[in-house]
């Protein structure tokens, strides 16, 4: 296991771990977003889908634990790399001039921290129901249609989705670079893919809250 420890201790190893665990979450948010869109079809469609996800406790918890472990590894690597990066450049320049770093790349860390805090809120809101005034474990459609009557809720979810868009725009592109995929064949496609994911996922997620708020569904 010495090799694994050496890999984990290195800056490059931790970046690769971040890329892999990031990919796990990208796949999850794609699936989550696609599932949410069933709310546009009918309340029964999304409720049936939600019930299907909970068919087996074993499968449900395997996925939940898998996602949690991926998140812990992702955040742990981020904290350690950030500490390394901040101490590697103790003195700042009097004149700072970014030439290449995109706003998405520069907001990666704080955007990530915001998303993490928001995720805790989101789970308490829609998974456990602790922060929901009228929560039902079976009627998912009711949960969202009650929550998104409020403009404040819609705005807070929209803010989180903007953060997610930024995080995905740099993260998905970086994933390829960190995993070593920078062949000319993937050079342009990975930029397109990152842009497409960064736009389509947050837009897909926001469709339901806006549709409820404007009374199109619900």
């Amino acid at each position: 296991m010495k090799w694994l420890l050496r890999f984990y201790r290195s800056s490059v190893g931790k970046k690769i771990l971040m890329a892999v665990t990031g990919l796990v979450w990208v796949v999850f948010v794609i699936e989550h977003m696609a599932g949410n869109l069933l709310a546009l079809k009918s309340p029964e469609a999304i409720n049936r889908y939600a019930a299907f996800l909970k068919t087996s406790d074993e499968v449900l918890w395997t996925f939940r634990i898998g996602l949690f472990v991926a998140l812990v590894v992702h955040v742990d690597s981020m904290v350690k790399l950030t500490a390394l990066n901040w101490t590697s450049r103790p003195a700042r320049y009097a004149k700072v001039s970014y030439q290449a770093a995109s706003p998405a790349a520069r907001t990666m860390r704080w955007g990530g921290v915001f998303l993490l805090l928001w995720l805790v809120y989101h789970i308490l809101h829609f998974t456990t129901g602790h922060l929901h005034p009228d929560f039902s474990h079976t009627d998912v459609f009711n949960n969202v249609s009650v929550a998104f009557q409020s403009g404040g809720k819609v705005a807070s979810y929209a803010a989180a989705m903007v953060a997610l868009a930024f995080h995905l725009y740099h993260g998905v592109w970086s994933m390829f670079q960190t995993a070593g995929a920078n062949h000319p064949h993937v050079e342009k496609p990975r930029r397109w893919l990152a842009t497409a994911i960064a736009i389509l996922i947050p837009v897909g997620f926001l469709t339901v809250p806006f549709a409820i708020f404007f009374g199109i569904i619900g």
Partner: protein
Amino acid sequence: MNLTLHVWRQAGPSEAGRLVTYDAPDVSPEMSFLEMLDVVNERLIERGQEPIAFDHDCREGICGSCSLVINGVPHGPRRGTATCQLHMRTFSDGDHIWIEPFRARAFPIVRDLIVDRSAFDRIIQTGGFIGVSTGSAPDANAIPIPKAVADRSMDAAACIGCGACVAACPNASAMLFTAAKISHLGLLPQGRPERTKRALAMVQRMDLEHFGGCTNYGECHTACPKEIPLETIALLNRDYLKASLVSRD
């Protein structure tokens, strides 16, 4: 041209430094940036003041000695150009120019604008070489190397080890430098035998020297006077991942 310079002055490694403002009158647009500093220094010496200390050697853009962060950009505003090859015509009359040293924990300041870049030498010592049989020179082209591979290797080999990548990176990461060496040697058959060991050893040394990690900002590539491609960093990542899995050490 008349310019105003804001130059980082620091008497020694443990002394406190500060930005000092100097007037640079009658600067010729044909001067290189270092020649402009030479003229400023001559005036300082005439007035009995300490000249500004800065690194330089070949002044032809190939030795990697010159440095300087000019207006927040290592080697100044011209892409693919080292400070020594940067001419004053790039600037305009009346400009204020900020001149700071390369900043990184791994590059301690020696004096004024001079930093100690020997951390790079130590990275090279751990893996920036190939094993060869000594003796008479081998026949030219005895080992066939496709042109496309030789070109990629040569693109990476153009690295002059100046450290602009570290200076430009908000994390002071040495990934572009290390990746250039790993690509340059690993792509050629002569460098293959040590490829696994090299990736592990150079990355470990890079971390030990306390360079930061790569967050794919791309600042390094933009600042690089030899425009080393970012693709080399992907190759380093790939080599490191593979080496971690296959190495028996």
